[in-house]
């Protein structure tokens, strides 16, 4: 694997392979010494132009568990705030010997630009670009679903026949976009649920169904209910009347939680707005995988960094 920019170009076999490697990584994290010498001497740069806590520290933990050196670069307090271009930043990192660049950027396509430009030779991992994709989130979500369904017999399996309801702000969600392609590659069915103002108008060509009624979708008994965060930083228009109305119609509240089937799992990519898209009881219930998702995120990112940085370079 040269770069990881999107889940759209992952085949079923490639996706299963990454999830299987993530299983191996997860196994090593139960050992007495959790650090592996695998990427000793490699340098991973976390290049974050947007705020992030869990994704950045998850990548940092993943790189460090594999013994890579980690350089954290956040746009705030850097030359970027003095007006440095992406090109100059990239060339600076190239000269510093970066082997992989994990980039989060507010502009959709920035990681692709970095990978295609020739400014830098490193492997590029998209850690979220604008409203485009967030592939490692989708990988950790698929990994979490697979573990919930198959436990220790997960290796080699896909997600055939699984139905995933992704609920909330589909319009701005890179998590939803990355998930829909990966879930489709793995044989799962995706249903987007949200207010019409927060679901894209044109979904032709997307492997997803659309529902505007959360209660009707929950009544069909989905295997997974994935709640998305209401991104207040992108809510610069009148998408819904007020938070209370959103919560009443589209939030996973206690009453909806009680109606879920016995094996339905509740996911959230975090950070959660408790009381808005998900109630505290739902977030803390035994069927919630929010904490597993964080732990699995490290394993999934270790797998991606391993596949990117070990082995002869294929150009």
């Amino acid at each position, binding site marked *: *694997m040269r770069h990881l920019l999107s889940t759209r170009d992952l085949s079923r076999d490639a996706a299963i*392979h990454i999830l*299987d*490697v993530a*299983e*191996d990584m997860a*196994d*090593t994290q139960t*050992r*007495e*010494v*959790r*650090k*592996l*010498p*695998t990427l000793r001497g490699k340098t991973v740069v976390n290049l974050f132009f947007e705020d992030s806590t869990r994704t950045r520290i998850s990548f940092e933990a993943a790189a460090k568990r*594999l013994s890579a050196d980690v350089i954290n670069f956040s746009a705030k307090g850097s030359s970027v705030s003095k007006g440095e271009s992406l090109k100059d930043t990239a060339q600076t990192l190239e000269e510093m010997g970066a082997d992989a660049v994990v980039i989060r950027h507010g502009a959709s396509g920035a990681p692709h630009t970095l990978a295609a430009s020739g400014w830098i030779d490193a492997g590029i991992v998209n850690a979220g670009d604008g409203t485009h994709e967030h592939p490692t989130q989708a990988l950790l979500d698929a990994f979490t679903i697979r573990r919930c369904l198959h436990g220790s017999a997960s*290796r080699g399996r896909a997600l055939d026949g699984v139905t995933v309801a992704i609920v909330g702000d589909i319009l701005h969600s890179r998590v939803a976009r990355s998930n829909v392609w990966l879930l489709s590659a793995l044989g799962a069915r995706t249903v987007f649920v949200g207010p019409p103002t927060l679901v894209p108008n044109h979904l032709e060509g997307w492997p997803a169904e659309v529902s505007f009624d959360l209660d009707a979708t929950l009544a069909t008994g989905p295997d997974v209910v994935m709640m998305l965060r209401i991104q207040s930083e992108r809510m610069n228009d009148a998408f819904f009347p007020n938070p209370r109305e959103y919560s009443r119609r589209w939030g996973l509240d206690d009453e909806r939680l009680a109606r879920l089937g016995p094996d339905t799992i509740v996911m959230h990519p975090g950070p959660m707005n408790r009381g808005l898209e998900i109630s505290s009881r739902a977030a803390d219930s035994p069927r919630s995988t929010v904490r597993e998702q964080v732990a699995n995120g490290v394993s999934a990112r270790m797998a991606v960094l*391993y*596949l990117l940085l*070990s*082995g*002869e370079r*294929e150009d």
Partner: protein
Amino acid sequence: MSARVVLQHADISRALTRIAHEILESNRGPDDLVILGIPTRGVVLARRVARLVSEISGTGVPVGSLDVTMYRDDLSRNPTRAPSPTSIPARGLDGATVVLVDDVLYSGRTIRAALDAIGDIGRPRAVRLAALVDRGHRELPIRPDFVGKNLPSSPSERIFVRLEDVDGEESVTIEQGGV
């Protein structure tokens, strides 16, 4: 390219039986033994050795597999390797006598990686090494404790171990490399 059969089905079985006896002899019984195979064929051999040791001693001996991919020193010189699962018996490795089992012992680099991997999992009392074939050409100060067959070879030759459970047939052959 000529292939020569070095060990046949019965030879392999006899070699493993002898190794099982030698393991029990050097350990003075089955106590605290843990047998770990190195994927892929080492795991199959380890299971067979463990079964033989258990039969001979009348005590079940724990067996597992140890993947060393993440500890190799040649990761950036070869295409990306897919790791295999590691499974360590529930008793852990602390205080155990670990017997590593691999099919062919060559440079010793795989065993070096395995020793590092073991160190991250626990602290065995001792680590021993069993190999079905020792073909020489060590690049590190590592030697086996239990050997099925010493097979002096030239680096241009290739040695193939085929086992029933993996390959559907059972033999060790040596082939003149066409390099």
